[in-house]
């Protein structure tokens, strides 16, 4: 079958067996069920293998600089609320180079879906450690193994009261599709951290490893309980998959802008009130 957002006959740059293929399929399936027309969808991305996603889908795209997709996505949504905005990239892009933007995006809470392909390694630059690489992971640069504590995006997101925090796994297509759909339907910032096996540069965290080190959140788990979410975020031996935390009470960045209070038109359709400006200028007169 083919999807509305699918482009046929692509020369895709990902390695055979890469987790990104499954993420692409889940994303297309989710977008189709969400009935987001390609013209109203913008995917902002950075640099790496994951950020190539918008080139492989029918959508508007802003494939910008390494680490900078979140500021771009935030501004796009703030200027045109009629667009569905996704920021997509890998763990190095979003948690390393763009780490400061990640932190502040959680505080800002734009209505943006944040998809992070987390493969615990740098793929495009051929196998160096990423912020989420495990201690001891050996690479051409970390020759004796990683000595840094891994970055825990789920814990950081819960700590900053992110409005939606989920985790999924590329190996579980239906679960991933469901998480993307929940994230898109959520009003406000929504993180989906996606475990994505890198078949070329990470021989440790492969499909089997992720199967063995993850589990689905139990029925009855309450994602609005922040303390419980913290406890889940701290589980690193076997990591939970599902919606870990949700705070539906937070207003979005756009909702808090005076510019959107009484006017639903995208900003580019609005004109400067030159008469009002004339009055403002006159207020400076002697």
């Amino acid at each position, binding site marked *: 079958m083919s999807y509305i957002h699918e482009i046929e006959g692509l020369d895709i740059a990902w390695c055979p067996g890469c987790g990104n293929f499954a993420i692409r399929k889940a994303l297309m399936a989710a977008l189709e069920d969400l009935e987001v027309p390609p013209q109203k969808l913008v995917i902002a991305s950075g640099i790496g293998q994951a950020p190539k996603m918008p080139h492989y889908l029918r959508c508007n795209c802003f*494939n910008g600089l390494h680490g900078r997709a979140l500021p*771009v996505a935030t501004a796009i949504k703030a200027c*045109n609320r009629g667009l569905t905005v996704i920021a997509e990239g890998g763990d190095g892009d979003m948690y390393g180079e763009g780490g400061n933007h990640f932190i502040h995006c959680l505080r800002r809470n734009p209505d943006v879906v944040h998809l992070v392909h987390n493969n615990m390694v740098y793929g495009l630059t051929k196998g160096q450690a990423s912020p989420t690489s495990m201690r001891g992971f050996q690479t051409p640069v970390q020759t004796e193994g990683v000595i840094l504590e891994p970055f825990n995006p789920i814990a950081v997101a819960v700590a900053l009261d992110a409005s939606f925090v989920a985790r999924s796994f590329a190996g579980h297509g239906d679960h991933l599709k469901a998480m993307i759909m929940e994230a898109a339907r959520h009003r406000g910032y929504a993180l989906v951290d996606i475990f994505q096996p890198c078949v070329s540069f990470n021989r440790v965290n492969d499909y089997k490893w992720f199967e063995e080190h993850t589990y689905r959140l139990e029925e009855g788990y309450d994602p609005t309980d922040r303390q419980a979410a913290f406890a889940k975020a701290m589980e690193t031996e076997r990591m939970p998959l599902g919606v870990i935390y949700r705070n539906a009470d937070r207003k979005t960045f756009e909702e808090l802008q005076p*510019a959107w209070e009484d006017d639903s038109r995208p900003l580019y359709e609005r004109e400067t009130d030159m008469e009002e*400006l004339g009055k403002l200028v006159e207020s400076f007169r002697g």
Partner: protein
Amino acid sequence: MAREGKDARTKDLNVVICGEAGQGIKTVESLLASLLRASGLYVFSTKEYMSRVRGGSNSTDLRLSSGPVECPVERVDLLVALGPQALAHMAGRSGDGTAVIASPDSLEKGGEGFPGKTFPVAIGEMAEDAGRKVYSNTVAAGVVAGAFGLDLQRCLEEVGSSFEDMGEEDRKGNLTAFESGFRAGDDLDLDLSVPAPEEGSGDELLLNGAQAVGLGAIAGGMRFMCSYPMSPSTGVLAFLAGQARRFGLVVEQAEDEISAVNMGLGAWYTGARSMVTTSGGGLALMSEGISLAGMVETPLVLHVAQRPGPATGLPTRTGQEDLDLVLGAGHGEFPVAVLAPGSLEQAFSLAARAFWLAEKHQVPVFVVTDQSIMDSYYPASGLDLDGVSTQRFLVDAGEDYRRYSLGGGPPSPMAVPGSGPGLVCLDSDEHDESGHITEDLDLRVRMVDKRLGKFAGLAEDALEPELVGDGGVMVVCWGSSRNACIEAVERLEMEDVSVMHLPQLYPLHDSVAELLEEADSVITVEGNATGQMGRLLGDLAGISPDHEVLRYDGLPFRADTLAEKLRKAIEGGRG
């Protein structure tokens, strides 16, 4: 003691109030400026201050004149020193003609050897008598108002309303403090009259450069602004934040300059005109984003308020050191435009024009100012709202829309996402016509040529240089040096000297080279140590200056001392 002003027709006086950070110099400045303006005088005010919240020595210049004045002078006619340190700080600018008002205590500690005539006034004691020592600034304002022989009742009304928001005790205390100061000033034998102009200055707009740039941005159709605070550019961010509700703007303080520039591009990608405001250090952080603007051909306006560097430099002072930075910002090759307003009117009109220029040519446009423009107030005759173009350059995304089409242009027509059935794709990688990654090297060359091809249109839209006078000796300047150069040349009273101000440095208007070639000699005036504009004239116009007048101590050019430097350069050249 009125002095001859910038020409024989006007008289002016330069009053300087100096004290520690935290002593309320700013309150004295705004109060006195407002009182003196109400008496019909023209007032130019500017400040120099240290990068600290308490202590040190800060000063404010109030230049009063019977005619328009738009730049500072070095000379100090009346100094109000709030403490012994202030005397030391101002000694270099003071001379025999300087009258100094200070408390007896300050004069005892710091007055020895101070040039000029001293007038002891027990400022601190009067403040204490009025209730609190912190009213010293208000006493000082009263002393100056009294010395000028202003109308006490009118002053008290103004003082009362300016302290309206305070508690009753403080408001009354300040009124008492002002009145004691006023009476003490009235008793001094200072003869400070400046003849009121025939036509009062009351009708002009009184604003500073930050406000002028901000008003220009609104006029230019700005809808989104994101920046990280950095002196001296923050005034623009603060001003626009204050106007967000009234004009439906989205104004956000970013976590860093990198975020700011990327947000700016995200905004204009949706068609919302956007601007960032920063200083040199922030611009350095933005430079990858500027390169991105060059590659994805998304317009952006960058306001750069310069201060001295390198690195943190002198954070609160002025300079013109970042022309090279602006011209070189961003890796790779792509066209940009650089505008440099020299007056408040230009700060408005060039800021507005920047948005039109950026969208028309799909390039980053820099508006380069500095601390002296940002922080100086003077009456502006008017802002040219009618001269602002509201033309837009966006198309709808049709069925087969391709953002980087090679047919027609450059630039390729710009559509925004959601504007039609087509898709709008941008890529920081080299890309094909539809905006997707390519490594087709022939296509790469065509894309580079298309991007650089925008330069021709930019050159057609370049602003002509401003000329004042028609003498063969040309004093060439850019940005904030403009007003000081114009007044300095007037002071020289030499018929063969003229001023050329460049409101646009890149691309340079064709006539610049022609005019400079015809000049008898060229003297450049800039606020940096290496003559950056002079080098640019060499590169773009094939002209090297005969003399350079450079100032890089963190202070602005002042008309009187600049005139003397120009005289030496001209006479030396003739020698």
